[in-house]
């Protein structure tokens, strides 16, 4: 162990790359969600993701990281003064995990670790948006995103990874975010949907994907980025990072098969939406488990998660909540499956950190009894209730105040035009040569902007 603090270049490179990979997941998610949505709401869908990147990154820098990873305050939250965004951390010893005995920590600059965790916060918030497509005001979403991140995500990240009660006292396992990210976002999605209600026409009408290749490409980008999410969460370059990586791959592959097999049996045909959804279900389920179980157990987990989530997405029709793009069916259920899986298949033989670092036990099938299973369930339950309840209350409160639910008219005409004055596509051959926006001849366009001569249509001349 070095006396002077020293950067570990390989760990640092790995985290830099992983951070970039996780950042890419949110545009990937935007595409996945956008493609699943109707064409008249695709932009609003994507905008919820893009705005989450914008807003949550800033909150994280200024106080979120402190709340999650500052010195523990009674197991509940980190000390908000520790890493305030107004400070800078560029001294030689500003390495993550540095202590007196281990002045280099994991050898990664604080800013790199902060950026890595930042993109986790971003995508967790973005995940929620898939449940409420086609029916919300954008201002309401922004407010919700900021508040939910502050009240729920930042503390929960502390509970699970920052020295809070779930990790440090309950000793529940969560390698890369089954509880902190997927159960958390899934429960929030459910709470928010219950607060905001169904879309006009649901479930009578068909709300089918408008662009399935986007769905598949989005799933592909998510898969790619998820390697950073999962294998990056080991934070160091070692054999467990390799284990997390290969487990992510094989569980996801198995979940693709699990989902399409269910479709084949139930519906007679396997679909590409199913294969893509299966991939996400597998990625979700392996997330908490990827560094703690064996590859063969990951394959099994993937098969189960793919198959169960393929069935779970029908729950909404039974129970009557309009979770548009199945955030509950995939992330909530998938997160639970992966988290409980650890109660059966986690093994200190595979990863000594299970016992040494987290203080957790072997799973049931490795002779650890049901202890760990109980811990996993308790952790999941606590986050489910807390996140779901806060999301529900925030949803109601925002709707009562600044307004959250869009009008029925906006839903019918399309939320993109209503909230963003944009439409996604224009394939018309006449566009820009007279048609499309059908701006009138002879009139110099101008906008309401300060630039007095920008385009403006001559609505008053012709629409009368």
């Amino acid at each position: 162990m070095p006396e002077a603090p020293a950067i570990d270049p390989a760990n640092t490179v790995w985290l830099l790359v992983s951070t970039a990979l996780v950042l890419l997941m949110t545009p990937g998610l935007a595409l996945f969600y956008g493609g699943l949505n109707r064409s008249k709401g695709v932009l609003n869908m994507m905008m919820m993701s893009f705005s989450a990147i914008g807003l949550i990154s800033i909150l994280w820098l200024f106080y979120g990281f402190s709340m999650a990873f500052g010195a523990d305050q009674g197991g509940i939250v980190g000390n908000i003064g520790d890493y305030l965004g107004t400070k800078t951390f560029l001294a030689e010893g500003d390495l993550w995990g540095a202590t007196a005995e281990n002045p280099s920590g994991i050898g990664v600059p604080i800013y790199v670790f902060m950026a890595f965790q930042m993109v986790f916060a971003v995508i967790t918030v973005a995940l929620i948006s898939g449940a409420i497509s086609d029916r919300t005001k954008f201002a309401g979403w922004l407010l919700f995103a900021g508040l939910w991140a502050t009240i729920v995500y930042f503390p929960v990240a502390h509970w699970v990874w920052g020295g809070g009660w779930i990790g440090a006292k309950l000793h529940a396992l969560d390698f890369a975010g089954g509880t902190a990210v997927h159960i958390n976002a899934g429960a929030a999605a459910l709470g928010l949907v219950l607060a905001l209600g169904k879309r006009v026409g649901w479930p009578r009408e068909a709300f089918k994907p408008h662009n399935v290749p986007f769905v598949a490409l989005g799933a592909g980008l998510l898969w790619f980025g998820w390697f950073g999410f999962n294998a990056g969460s080991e934070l160091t370059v070692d054999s467990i990072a390799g284990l997390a990586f290969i487990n992510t791959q094989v569980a996801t592959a198995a979940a693709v098969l699990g989902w399409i097999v269910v479709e084949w049996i139930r519906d007679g045909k396997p679909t590409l939406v199913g294969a893509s959804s299966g991939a996400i279900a597998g990625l979700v389920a392996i997330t908490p488990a990827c560094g703690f179980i064996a590859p063969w157990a990951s394959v099994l987990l993937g098969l189960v998660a793919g198959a169960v989530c393929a069935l779970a997405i029908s729950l909404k029709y039974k129970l009557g909540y309009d979770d548009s793009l199945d955030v509950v069916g995939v992330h909530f259920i998938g997160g639970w499956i992966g988290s409980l899986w650890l109660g059966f298949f986690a093994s200190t033989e595979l990863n000594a950190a299970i016992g040494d670092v987290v203080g957790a036990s072997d799973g049931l099938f490795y002779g650890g009894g049901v202890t760990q299973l109980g811990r996993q369930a308790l952790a999941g339950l606590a986050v489910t209730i807390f996140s779901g309840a806060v999301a529900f209350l925030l949803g109601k409160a925002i709707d009562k105040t600044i307004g959250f639910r869009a009008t029925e008219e906006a839903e019918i005409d399309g939320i993109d035009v209503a909230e963003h004055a944009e439409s996604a596509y224009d394939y018309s051959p006449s566009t820009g040569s007279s048609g499309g926006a059908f701006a009138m001849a002879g009139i110099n366009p101008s906008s309401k902007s300060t630039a007095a001569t920008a385009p403006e249509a001559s609505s008053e001349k012709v629409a009368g």
Partner: protein
Amino acid sequence: MKLVTAVIKPYQLDAVKEALHALGVAGLTVSEVQGYGRQKGHTEVYRGAEYTVEFLPKIKVEVLTDEIDVEKVVDALVTAARTGKIGDGKVWVTGVEDVVRVRTGERGLDAL
């Protein structure tokens, strides 16, 4: 025989189809069109420039029908398509001299 053409709001297609089906209309042909009329279009913004999109998406429904049923078809169409708000569209009737079913070569009423 007559051809009844209707230009309606997209959201009403469902109701129209059901109403026609209830009448026993066996077939129809629909297409996507853009309408311009009293109903105002919406405004779109692109990089600070505002554009009024004056054409609104509409659905055109075409139904070939028996002379005797025309009134029923028109009424059913109009009732089902009505929301009472501006832009509900038009229905019009034109004369058709002959109809052929491609599959069988049947002509006239048998072709419907």
